[in-house]
């Protein structure tokens, strides 16, 4: 006896199977609904949407900090139990109901329209700040076309007597990122004004996005041939280059060395689940839209499995490449540290060059410490440990714009590698933006915000212009802090709620029996036991657990943020400050409004029906 919530009128809202078949043959020409030119475009678009910046800069960090190779176990388990079923669900429901996210949920039940609206809000918020990251990538890309990269050396100060003090205390890469790119203020309250160079980059990022989505999937489908394939080419080039650098293998070994005790730590499983969930770009509504443009009998089950496999493979592949370069950088730092210490010893004791090398450094130090302990103390030698340098693994923008750029400056022919790296990041982000914007545009069309008579070019244009204007928040001096705020709160909790509601809605409101029949109609066979169990019990349970843990963590943690403050005592370490009181209002708007849209719309509809 399957649990099925009452859902009157469902039959009237959806097309029956016969009607779908008729639609399929009649719509042979150009119908009302756009279609994919071929299957490749659809697959590349979905792969591009799923594979994004998170695969490059979040997964390697998680892998390394949660026991290396052992992290693969929770990652793969949760990929299979959580990622693949959710993906299949979204593909199937979009293909069956042939509408965007708002249309699909309103069709299933009018009270569920809130899920579609929440999806739209989340997609909108993420689009706003995601394209700012694209603007940063473009800024670095534009600056890579120089023989000496601007972040490889500190600039001279005003009277040319020395280096700029802020740069000297930190490092050239830090200075270039915090001062010359962001022009970061020390506090989120000080907005620092608009940074004109970042405004130009933001405009160019939105312009490039606009030209790719100007006619919807007609143009997007062509753009993805480049944006989805180029990252793999660049990753392979970097792998070959990375493996020939000194110290790269130590990085890879460090990444994959398993530490099985980490598996007993619940945070590991939580982080793995969250990474799988966010990596698949589920609950944005973009995937539902994309699969609604497919033909009815497209094999969505196969697509889901293939895309999940590609996503998982890309994460591991990107992690390997990143860690060859990080291994190289760590080895360089270690060599420099040790070299510096050796030089100090040689200079203080006037020993001939080559007397103290890396191999006998410890012995020599010990013997010298025995004979001249006070001198050695006064030298303040640094402790050099390769593992410390390797575990300096950062994530997020720190990895891309500080750690990796530093590593690039140490490679021969740096401008080439820099251009390649930032083109890869740009393509990764752009293809994800296609999905985000789709999740915004289609619900807007369904809500009727734009008149139907307006051409597609103008609706996309207006959306891009408005998003660009609102996105100017993120190019102020304090823009970086706003961005992390949006990232932490706008894109986390609401998505989990939406995904949970999606599963419950399809399985218990639409009816798992009807869903099984639909899939049998579409692909020819009923979904097997694996899908049944995961859709009905396992995946919703995992979503609930992750949501509860995430919610508790976010609510109980003290709200601190890291600032770049040259005046602070521990400079160049980022200073942690508490958020001002009015930020809590912002956080509530970011996380609360999409989440509350789900019950809110239901109540609204209920009231309308009762009246």
């Amino acid at each position, binding site marked *: 006896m399957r649990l099925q919530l009452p859902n009157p009128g469902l039959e009237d809202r959806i097309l029956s199977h016969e009607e779908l078949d008729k639609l399929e043959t009649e719509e042979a020409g150009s119908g009302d609904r756009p279609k994919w030119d071929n299957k490749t475009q659809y697959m590349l678009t979905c792969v591009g949407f799923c594979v994004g910046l998170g695969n490059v800069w979040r997964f390697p960090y998680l892998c390394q900090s949660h026991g290396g190779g052992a992290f693969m176990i929770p990652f793969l388990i949760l990929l299979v139990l959580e990622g693949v079923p959710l993906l299949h669900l979204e593909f199937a429901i979009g293909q069956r109901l042939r509408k965007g996210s708002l249309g699909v949920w309103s069709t299933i039940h009018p009270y569920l329209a809130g899920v579609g609206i929440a999806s739209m809000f989340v997609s909108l918020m993420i689009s706003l700040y995601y394209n700012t990251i694209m603007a940063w990538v*473009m*800024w670095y*890309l*534009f*600056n890579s*076309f*120089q023989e000496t990269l601007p972040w490889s050396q500190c*600039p*001279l100060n005003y009277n*040319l*007597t*020395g*280096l700029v003090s802020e740069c000297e205390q930190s490092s050239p890469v830090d200075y270039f990122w915090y001062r010359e790119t962001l022009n970061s203020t020390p506090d989120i309250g000080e907005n620092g004004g608009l940074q004109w*160079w970042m405004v*130009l*980059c933001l*405009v*160019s990022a939105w*312009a*490039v996005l*606009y*030209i790719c989505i*100007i*006619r919807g999937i007609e*143009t997007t489908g062509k753009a993805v041939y480049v944006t989805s394939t180029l990252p793999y080419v660049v990753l392979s080039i970097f792998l070959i280059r990375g493996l020939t650098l000194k110290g790269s293998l130590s990085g890879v070994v460090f990444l994959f060395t398993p530490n099985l005790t980490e598996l007993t730590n619940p945070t590991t499983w939580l982080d793995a689940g969250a990474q799988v969930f966010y990596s698949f770009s589920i609950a944005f509504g973009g995937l539902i839209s994309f699969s609604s443009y497919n033909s009815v009998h497209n094999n969505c089950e196969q697509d889901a499995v293939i895309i999940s496999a590609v996503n998982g493979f890309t994460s591991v592949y990107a992690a390997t490449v990143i860690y060859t370069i990080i291994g190289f950088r760590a080895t360089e730092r270690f060599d420099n540290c040790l070299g510096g210490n050796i030089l100090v010893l*040689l*200079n203080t004791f*006037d*020993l*001939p*060059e*080559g007397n103290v090398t890396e191999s006998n450094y410890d012995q020599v130090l010990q013997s010298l410490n025995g004979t001249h302990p006070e001198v050695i103390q006064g030298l303040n030698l640094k402790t050099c440990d390769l593992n410390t340098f390797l575990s300096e693994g950062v994530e997020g923008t720190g990895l891309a714009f500080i750690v990796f750029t530093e590593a690039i400056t140490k490679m021969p022919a740096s401008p080439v590698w820099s251009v390649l790296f930032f083109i890869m990041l740009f393509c990764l982000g752009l293809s994800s933006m296609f999905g985000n914007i789709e999740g915004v545009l289609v619900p807007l069309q369904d809500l009727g915000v734009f008149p139907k008579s307006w*051409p597609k*070019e103008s609706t996309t244009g207006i959306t891009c212009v408005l998003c660009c204007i609102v996105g100017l928040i993120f190019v102020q001096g304090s823009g970086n802090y706003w961005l992390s705020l949006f990232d932490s709160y706008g894109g986390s909790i609401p998505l989990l709620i939406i995904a949970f509601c999606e599963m419950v809605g399809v399985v218990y409101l639409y009816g798992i029996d009807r869903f099984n029949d639909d899939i049998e109609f579409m692909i020819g066979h009923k979904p097997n036991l694996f899908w049944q169990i995961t859709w009905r019990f396992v995946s919703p349970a995992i979503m609930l657990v992750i949501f509860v843990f995430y919610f508790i963590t976010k609510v109980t943690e003290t709200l601190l943020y890291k600032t770049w403050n040259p005046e602070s005592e521990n400079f160049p370490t980022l200073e942690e400050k508490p958020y001002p009181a009015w930020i809590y209002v912002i956080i509530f708007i970011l996380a609360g409004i999409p989440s509350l849209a789900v019950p809110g719309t239901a109540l609204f509809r209920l009231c309308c029906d009762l009246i």
Partner: protein
Amino acid sequence: MLVWILFLLCQVGAPALAQDLCQRDAPNGYKVRISLKTALGEDAYEWNQSEMFFFQATMAFAMRRHFQMETYNVDNIILCVQTSRVSFWFVVTSPDNTTMLIPKADVEKAVRMSRHRINNAFLLSDRTLEFLGIYPTLAAPVNPDTPPWLIVFGVVIGAVCAGIIALLVSSLLQKRRKEKGMTEDGQDEEDMQVKGVENGINLDGTYNRGFTDDDRFTKL
């Protein structure tokens, strides 16, 4: 005889005097540190007395170049406290009076002026041939008129704008063509429908004008 003894004493005493002038932490002296292996690796030459002589000659050249009037000689550059690091101290005596040392500031100016020549003479750089206390002058930054990133930005934004305009224009033309085509098609469709319904049977498919009943219109 006395003069001869005095002369002998001077010969013996001169180096001793020179030793007094040049010593570790001499007030008017500079310490030089050379890192051959760091600079040249396997091509490093051996630092021996000939190289020391070369250094004296180079310093004399630097002093001559700076002062331009006084004739400095190799003897005016006194070296001492050599170590195997390769580091040593040197002082510069005046060519007129060998007991008088040239002040530190003047020596610094001379070294700064000819630093590049001195470095090149030994195939070294500012970092590997160090004069402790004389900091290398930093190279003046090359400031291009337009920052390079602005040029790349201009190219990218120009290409994107051109693409956007091209796409908009093409879709506008397509729309206009469709509208024009619709009005023509409308007439054709009417004719086809009229001729298509013969004997009450709706003919599917395209109408083949080859079998038209033209006789209808050409009645004799």
